[in-house]
């Protein structure tokens, strides 16, 4: 009789126990879900992704009459991801070349300073010049600008690249394609789809292995964000809980947007392509908003296995998979069979794979150094900034090629240099604005990341002389004569005897001749007569940060300088005495397009425009008749001012030359300070010439304009004094500062001009003196 109540009581206890256990489980699950909610909110409400900041080159300007280098321009278009086609371009990002006619379908150009819609334009070239530019209607365009080129990404440790998109911007067919193939009941389930799970379970049982996950889009997101990739029941359970919690916290569109920005779309080299925005750019060269139906279906099809269905790696598989997606869309009633058929018949067009490799690596390191004051490496690899720079990739390519060729040539001529670590550096800048267009800090970045352009300390040799001459113009004139004879100088109790590179030379030289011949003895004589303290004071104004001491050897470039500082200092001669701050960053823009930083042309006056012109004129003589006259023989017929430099024991070879438009510095040497056995004119000048020849597009053909305050007089080339007409055998015109004009007539050839005879300035004499403008 007692057995029944005992059994009933046991049953009650069991039920109570089970209920308590269930309650505890529910409570534990609820608590766990609460914990997950905190975790999910912390993850999603903050910054969802680390977006690498991107570095862009400058835009490329094209205009009628401009000289261009066809090969570099073609490379530029390729760098921008333009695809060469054999028909008239139909879509943006295509170009066709028919003889001298280049038909472009330009992409949209969007920088902080300008915005231009995608457009067609034809470039008409003759030889190496742009003859005209026309738009689609055949109207002449005065200017055309190519968009900036993405040249580097500041990756974090995961090396993920993504371009964020908003779901509102995406075409409807892209969203439907993804839903059709990944989760067609997305808008009706609550994070977990029991029908999908049951189907997956059946399929797995049938195959005796895990074949399908039955995961919804929310579950996939949960897995990507919070879980490891192993396939276990426990992990699956956590995935479902996270998905359910996410659905409680966020609305469907928000979850879908996160998913579309998160999913993995394969690799580009070592870089992971994530999100539909980046995938659209990488695979089709366009914004996700502009994806066509067939392209959308291709991307949707890739989600399951991005590398297997990659249109680059396996175009046939990608096409078949795309058509599977299109059929799925038809089945769901989201696409008409007709449209699906048309889309399925389209060939697979891709943008052309382009590796995210570092271009201009030394420039980028220099840039990173400049940015270090503004952003931490963590910020650069996660904030998704767009950094617009002054880099001209055509100039950069020309500089890299010329340096590489020049060093190889030198090794060929001096085989003993092979394996001795021959190095070089190049800086190309606009002297007016200070914009650094290109920088090469070494021969091979993979072998040595040391940036010789910005960090090397090298003796400048004779390339330093112009700054000494600029100081001397405060006391002397280009016609002043200096002793070019061996002299001993005492420095801190020690005797120093400078020598000329060529032992034999005239005993007296005018300032212009001394600079053209790079005469050491005359230069030291001039520096000492000018006053070494004054020389140091003047040189400092040119922005050198390295130590300089008032020693006579300073005049010959004995104190080390940094190549970039030397290039910058020369820019003052090219730019009316204005020293421009070297500019590499132009704008920094955040993800939303808000401009955070801007850098503009900044100049300061270091010498008068008249003095800068005198220096340019004298440096012109270096090219016309001096140590750089080799440039003329290789066809440089435009105004160039330049200086060669060679240090003791051939340790450094330099060449710095400029036009009003461009300044190029070339250094060749060895890191160990060993000899390279060649002068600046032999080792560095040919590299300079190669670069200058290749970058016509940056040399619009301007001459130096004589500023006010400069006058011309005819002098006796022997005495440097005013020429006596009819007596001085080799008269010549010379330029002077108007407040420092010689008044003494040539004493070598007869003193003052004959009374009543033609004077130095009078027209109608044997010497016709152009009056100062």
């Amino acid at each position, binding site marked *: 009789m007692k057995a029944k109540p005992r059994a009933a009581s046991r049953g009650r206890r069991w039920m109570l126990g089970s209920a308590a256990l269930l309650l505890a489980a529910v409570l534990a699950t609820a608590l766990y879900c609460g914990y997950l909610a905190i975790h999910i909110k912390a993850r999603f409400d903050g910054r969802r992704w680390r977006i690498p900041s991107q570095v862009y080159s400058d835009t490329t300007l094209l205009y009628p009459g401009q000289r261009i280098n066809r090969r570099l321009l073609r490379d530029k278009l390729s760098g921008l991801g333009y695809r060469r086609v054999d028909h008239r371009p139909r879509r943006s990002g295509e170009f066709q070349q028919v003889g001298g006619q280049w038909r472009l379908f330009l992409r949209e150009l969007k920088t902080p300073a300008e915005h231009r819609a995608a457009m067609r334009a034809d470039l008409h070239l003759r030889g190496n010049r742009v003859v005209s530019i026309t738009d689609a209607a055949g109207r002449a365009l005065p200017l055309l600008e190519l968009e900036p080129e993405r040249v580097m990404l500041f990756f974090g440790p995961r090396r993920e690249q993504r371009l964020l998109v908003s779901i509102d911007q995406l075409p409807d067919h892209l969203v439907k394609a993804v839903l059709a193939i990944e989760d067609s009941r997305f808008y009706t389930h609550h994070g977990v789809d029991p029908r999908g799970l049951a189907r997956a379970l059946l399929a797995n049982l049938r195959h005796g292995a895990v074949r399908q996950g039955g995961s919804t889009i929310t579950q996939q997101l949960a897995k990507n964000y919070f879980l490891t990739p192993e396939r276990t029941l426990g992990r699956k359970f956590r995935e479902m809980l996270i998905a359910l919690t996410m659905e409680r916290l966020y609305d469907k569109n928000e979850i879908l947007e996160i998913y579309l920005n998160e999913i993995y779309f394969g690799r580009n080299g070592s870089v992971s392509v994530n999100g539909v925005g980046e995938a659209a750019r990488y695979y089709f060269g366009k914004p996700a908003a502009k994806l066509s139906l067939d392209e959308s279906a291709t991307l949707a099809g890739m989600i399951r296995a991005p590398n297997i269905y990659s249109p680059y790696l396996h175009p046939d598989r990608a096409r078949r998979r795309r058509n599977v997606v299109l059929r799925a869309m038809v089945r769901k009633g989201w696409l008409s069979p007709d449209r699906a058929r048309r889309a399925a018949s389209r060939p697979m067009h891709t943008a052309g794979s382009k590796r995210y490799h570092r271009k201009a690596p030394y420039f980028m390191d220099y840039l990173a150094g400049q940015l270090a004051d503004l952003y931490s490496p963590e910020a650069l690899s996660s904030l998704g900034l767009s950094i617009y720079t002054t880099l001209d990739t055509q100039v950069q390519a020309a500089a890299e090629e010329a340096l590489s060729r020049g060093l190889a040539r030198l090794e060929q001529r001096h085989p003993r240099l092979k394996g001795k670590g021959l190095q070089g550096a190049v800086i190309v800048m*606009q002297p007016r604005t200070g914009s650094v267009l290109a920088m090469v800090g070494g021969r091979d970045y993979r072998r040595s990341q040391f940036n010789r352009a910005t960090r090397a300390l090298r003796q400048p040799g004779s390339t330093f002389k112009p700054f000494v001459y600029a100081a001397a113009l405060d006391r002397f004139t280009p016609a002043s004569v200096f002793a070019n004879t061996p002299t001993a100088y005492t420095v801190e109790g020690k005797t120093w005897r400078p020598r000329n590179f060529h032992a034999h030379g005239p005993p007296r030289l005018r300032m212009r001749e001394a600079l053209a011949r790079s005469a050491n003895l005359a230069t030291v004589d001039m520096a000492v007569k000018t006053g070494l303290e004054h020389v140091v004071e003047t040189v400092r104004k040119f922005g050198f940060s390295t130590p300089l001491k008032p020693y006579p050897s300073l005049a010959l470039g004995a104190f080390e300088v940094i190549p970039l500082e030397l290039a910058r200092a020369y820019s003052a001669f090219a730019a009316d005495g204005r020293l421009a701050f070297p500019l590499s960053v132009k704008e920094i823009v955040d993800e939303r397009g808000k401009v955070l930083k801007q850098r503009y042309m900044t100049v300061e006056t270091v010498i008068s425009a008249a003095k800068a012109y005198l220096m340019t004129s004298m440096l012109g003589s270096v090219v016309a008749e001096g140590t750089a006259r080799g440039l003329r023989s290789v066809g440089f017929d435009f105004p160039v001012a330049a200086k060669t430099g060679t240090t003791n024991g051939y340790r450094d070879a330099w060449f710095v030359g400029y036009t009003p438009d461009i300044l190029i510095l070339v250094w060749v040497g060895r890191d160990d300070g060993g000899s390279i056995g060649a002068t600046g004119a032999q080792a560095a000048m040919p590299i300079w010439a190669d670069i200058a020849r290749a970058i016509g597009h940056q040399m619009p053909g301007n001459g130096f304009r004589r500023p006010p305050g400069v006058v011309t007089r005819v002098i006796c080339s022997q005495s440097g004094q005013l020429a006596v007409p009819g007596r001085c055998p080799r008269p010549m015109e010379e330029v002077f500062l108007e407040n420092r004009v010689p008044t003494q007539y040539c004493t070598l050839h007869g003193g003052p001009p004959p009374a009543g005879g033609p004077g130095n300035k009078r027209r109608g004499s044997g010497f016709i003196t152009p009056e100062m403008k």
Partner: protein
Amino acid sequence: MTRIRTVLLLAAVTLLGACTQSYVEGQLAWPPPETAQAPATAKPPLMDNAARGASGPSPGATASLNLRRQAVGLIADGRLEEAIRILERAVNLAPSDGVNYYYLAEAWRRKGNTARALEFNRLAQLYLGDSPDWRSSLKNQRRAIASP
């Protein structure tokens, strides 16, 4: 009569021929001009466009002018940063065009950066100082920069 006419014609032809010959050979036969006896005056290297016989504005100068037109419109609209960026480009295409510096000074003045405005006004002065058309504009600009 006919003989006389023939003789006269022959004489005329001979005279004409002689003249023509002396003209053709003149450069060789005549004594060199007086100035040629004086030594030739050497010149410093030409650093302007005359060095290559260029005439008229360079293609760069034309492009610079087109950019400046855009920039002037932007200044008028108050889009100063964009105007400055375009003018910087124009400056490098035509470094000796003082008008670009004038507008750079104007854009910086309107942005309230006196130091930069003055520096560019000085550069404009360097190239436009001789121009009566620009003298008063430059002076007014300088005054406006000094008393914002």
